[in-house]
């Protein structure tokens, strides 16, 4: 892509960031957008390790949390007038502390990549999370540490009391950090990180210490994770042990992986999707984490390139202007798949409901009656079980009176589901 195209992409990104609140202006929407901003920076920082560097970490939340705690202490210092600087710099403080932690921990943990590295990060993550409950002075024990963000000097008349003001600050930080992280991938260190990921041995034979290359990526990702933590502190005004623990580390892994490790934009997609699931879906169903788990496992098994990878798979078709040939196959496979998913979700939700009537998409079902179950099971399995690639739909089509020959004639092949 040439320079003009790339520049216009970035300008478009900046404009989108500025303009989004116009379309989504409720308080809930602003809160979700802020969450997304934090998640985007966090997930991108994680991908510096995993997607770019090939280092699987199970303890990345350490830098996020440490950055967050430092940031919230800094906020306290502003609040109690021990220090006086603009609150807009708080994420930077988080970043610097994350960087310091990265330097310290990276000095001994980056010797190896692979399983050993993953285990070290797991152990360290648990260690830090457990320590945070013991070292109450810095980590505030079980209640965490909180502060008020409105005491700093005004920034062009803004005191950051409102959520929307935090959004614009967060958007600015998202833009800056995304640009920096992208530029990093275009530097010698960034490129060598890719090389070390692909073939650490050969990297040594072209003059680079694989360990040092990994160390630099590690420190950089710690910095940006700390920035995300600082932004979190600013947004929520409280940081707790939860922000350091394995669950948070797991969540960022999910975000980066589902979005797509191999593409720069992947973690951004993953962060957005996961934040939406977390905030919106959880209002509709208790089972959203179950769906998340299922989605994650299915992604690992069938779509290891993530959503970004899925989109990029269409690139050659797009370039050759043959996308329209994909419409029919997507319909014949997508619609049955959609029906399967919707019916399964209905069945899962119905089994969990406590009321006498289960209202799904406007249709009332009786959870205790066997008819409801039968209908849902039929709708699920009838059109096809795309995942299993079994000839389930054949009976359904036969029931509808369509013979095999007719199926072949119309070009409908209900029992092969691979677009």
């Amino acid at each position: 892509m040439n320079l003009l195209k790339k520049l216009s992409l970035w300008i478009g990104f900046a404009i989108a960031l500025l303009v989004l609140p116009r379309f989504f202006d409720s308080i809930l929407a602003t809160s979700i957008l802020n969450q997304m901003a934090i998640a985007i920076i966090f997930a991108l920082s994680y991908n510096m390790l995993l997607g770019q560097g090939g280092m699987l970490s199970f303890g990345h939340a350490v830098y996020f949390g440490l950055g967050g705690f430092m940031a919230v202490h800094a906020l306290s210092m502003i609040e109690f007038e021990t220090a006086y600087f603009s609150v807009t710099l708080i994420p930077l403080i988080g970043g610097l502390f994350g960087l310091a932690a990265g330097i310290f921990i990276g000095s001994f943990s980056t010797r190896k990549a692979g399983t050993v590295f993953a285990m070290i990060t797991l152990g360290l993550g648990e260690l830090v999370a457990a320590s945070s409950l013991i070292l109450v002075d810095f980590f505030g024990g079980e209640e965490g540490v909180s502060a008020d963000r409105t005491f700093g000097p005004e920034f062009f008349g803004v005191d950051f009391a409102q959520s929307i003001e935090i959004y614009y600050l967060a958007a600015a930080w998202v833009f800056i950090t995304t640009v920096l992280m992208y530029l990093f991938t275009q530097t010698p260190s960034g490129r060598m990180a890719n090389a070390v990921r692909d073939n650490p041995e050969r990297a040594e034979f072209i003059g680079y210490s694989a360990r040092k290359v990994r160390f630099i990526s590690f420190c950089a990702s710690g910095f940006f994770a700390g920035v995300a933590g600082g932004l979190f502190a600013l947004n929520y005004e409280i940081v707790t042990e939860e922000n350091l623990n394995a669950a948070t580390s797991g969540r960022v892994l999910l975000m980066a992986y589902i979005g797509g490790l191999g593409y720069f934009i992947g973690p951004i997609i993953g962060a957005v999707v996961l934040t939406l699931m977390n905030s919106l879906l959880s209002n509709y169903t208790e089972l959203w984490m179950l769906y998340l788990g299922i989605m994650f496992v299915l992604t690992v098994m069938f779509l290891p390139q993530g959503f970004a990878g899925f989109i990029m798979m269409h690139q050659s078709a797009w370039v050759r202007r043959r996308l329209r040939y994909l419409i029919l196959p997507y319909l014949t496979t997508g619609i049955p798949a959609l029906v399967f998913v919707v019916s399964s979700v209905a069945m899962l939700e119905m089994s969990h409901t406590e009321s006498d009537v289960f209202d799904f998409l406007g249709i009332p079902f009786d959870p205790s009656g066997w008819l409801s179950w039968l209908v849902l099971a039929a709708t699920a399995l009838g059109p096809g079980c795309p995942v299993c690639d079994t000839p389930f739909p054949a009976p359904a089509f036969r029931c509808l009176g369509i013979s095999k020959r007719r199926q072949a004639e119309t070009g409908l092949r209900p029992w092969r589901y691979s677009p």
Partner: protein
Amino acid sequence: MAILSLKNVSKKFGETEIIRNVSLDIVEGEKHAIIGPNGAGKSTLFHLISGRHGVTSGTIEFKGEPIHNLSPYEITRRGLARSFQVTNIFPRLNVFENVRCALLWSMGYRYSFWTLLGRAEKLNQKARATLNEIGLADKAHYPAGQLAYAEQRALELGIAIAGGGDMVMLDEPVAGMSHSEAASAVELIRRVTEGKTLVMVEHDMGIVFDVADRITVLVYGEVIASDIPERVRANPKVQEAYLGAAKEAEENA
């Protein structure tokens, strides 16, 4: 003037001695071939010299300085480049990036995260030039893992020579290539190693006798001969251990 000097080098893996008391001098600027039957320890010798393994005993000196227990990157930085018998490239980077990465250290970029490679004109020019030399200029944006075998071998060679080392070590550079592919590969090797020292492990006797100034014969980890081609060919020990096929190849060439 010996650019590389091995003295009494031995290497044991556990109880098994792979390299036994090898002493060898490579003269600066010469084209030196190492031959021997399979399992003789040729690749191991390469690994010892390039730093992939450490020696059990003995010393290796490059440009007068000991290198025998340094790590690969330290040795490479001193000007010793090598290629691998089993293609060892960066599969997910494209061809251009592969070569460019190989150039980074020698062009002084170190671990910088403040230079944008897109703007580094000299670097990109040199990378393009190298690609032209190895004949992969039109495949510059292919992911390296998707190249055909011979192209991957060419890339392998490109990565090895890109850094501009004074001594280039090639481990079976034409293995698995057809006759014509091998011929053009040898041409390429000759071209890019002009003025440099070349140490090559090869099985194809035609190529060996064609290219080499001196030949070392390694059998069961021991050097049984190290001399100019005519004398090596005439050496009875070598003939008995290894060279029966060589005369035919040479006659057919």
